[in-house]
């Protein structure tokens, strides 16, 4: 019987160099797995994968050396152990994320719930080529948002609270964009210079800065054969509703304009960044 390698790849089993053995990709969301899932991975690796486990460059876990004949059994044991297989090929891939505001002192947004919501909505969705989401909680960009087809970076839109301020000057000092200045017992914020990093909010010893979380999107990043940073086409956006309108628009644009086998970046380049920007803006205004 002929082996349908394409179907196997779609279901997370990538053909190895060695005959009829596969590297099995697991579903991981936002780089989080539980201790229980790790046990399952460990057990399956020992039983079916010769004890090998590979950590991928995008927070994925793969168990190589799975034999063709064992695939059904492996899938069943994975499922019973609370884990699931991932995907490969032309579709929405693993959604990656840093630990975000829940855990990291630098985080401006809660990355994991967003990663889970993105994964829930798009994971495995069929597209002209692969499509990667990555979410980083702040300007430090540990997760390297701009490498992704759609990158999300957390930021804070900040507001000064005069009544709490003792004019200590810490915020002026920590602002790396020189967006803040003190004069006449007032702190002046140059909104055109602020990059939403939130360092004023994080460092203020008297809670005199309030920060409203938002998402800075970068589009068309690709770090394979072609290397290009994702670009921002929208101002910082707030709330899951706006985010998903923008994300839907980006994916619809990709589906509409890309040729089969063409990544998001060249598709935007070909269709025109103005056309793309308009599509994104219209989606947000809708």
């Amino acid at each position, binding site marked *: 019987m002929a082996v349908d390698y394409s179907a196997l790849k779609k279901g997370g089993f990538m053909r190895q160099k060695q005959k009829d053995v596969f590297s099995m990709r697991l579903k991981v969301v936002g780089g989080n797995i539980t201790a229980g899932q790790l046990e399952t991975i460990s057990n399956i690796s020992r039983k079916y994968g010769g004890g090998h486990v590979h950590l991928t460059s995008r927070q994925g876990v793969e168990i190589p050396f799975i034999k063709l004949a064992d695939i059904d059994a492996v899938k069943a044991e994975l499922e019973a152990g609370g884990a699931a297989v991932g995907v490969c090929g032309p579709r929405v891939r693993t959604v990656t994320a840093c630990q975000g505001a829940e855990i990291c002192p630098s985080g401006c947004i809660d990355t994991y719930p967003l990663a889970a919501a993105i994964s829930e909505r798009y994971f495995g969705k069929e597209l002209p080529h692969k499509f990667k989401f990555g979410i980083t909680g702040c300007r430090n960009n540990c997760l390297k948002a701009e490498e992704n087809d759609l990158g999300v970076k957390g930021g804070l839109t900040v507001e000064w609270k005069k009544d709490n301020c003792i004019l*200590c*000057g*810490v915020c002026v*000092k*920590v602002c790396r964009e020189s967006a803040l200045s003190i004069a006449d017992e007032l702190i002046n914020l140059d909104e055109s210079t602020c990059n939403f990093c939130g360092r004023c909010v*994080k460092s203020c010893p008297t809670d005199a800065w309030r920060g409203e979380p938002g998402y800075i999107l970068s589009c068309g990043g690709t770090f394979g054969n072609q290397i290009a940073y994702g670009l921002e086409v929208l101002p910082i956006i707030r709330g899951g509703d706006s985010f998903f309108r923008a994300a839907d628009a980006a994916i619809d644009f990709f589906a509409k304009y890309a040729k089969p086998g063409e990544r998001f970046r060249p598709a935007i380049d070909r269709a025109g960044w103005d056309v793309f920007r308009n599509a994104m803006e219209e989606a947000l205004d809708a």
Partner: protein
Amino acid sequence: MPDYGIDAAVDITSVVCPVTFVKTKVAIEELDDGQILLVRMNDGEPIQNVPRSLKDEGHEILKLIDNKDGTYNLIVRKRESGG
């Protein structure tokens, strides 16, 4: 130097995070409630974190003074523990 009665001073310019805050904490623990500590720190990471950490421990930040030599003096009042 402004009009603060400084009760003690600590210099954390020769250490790095997290020892910066540890040294500061030890210095402030030696004070009585309401007394005032001067902390001399480097530009950069200490400025971003030490004032906020002191605030999170309940102390009151009074002033940050630029010494114009790459260091800063932070003036902090030890919290009243209320008993």
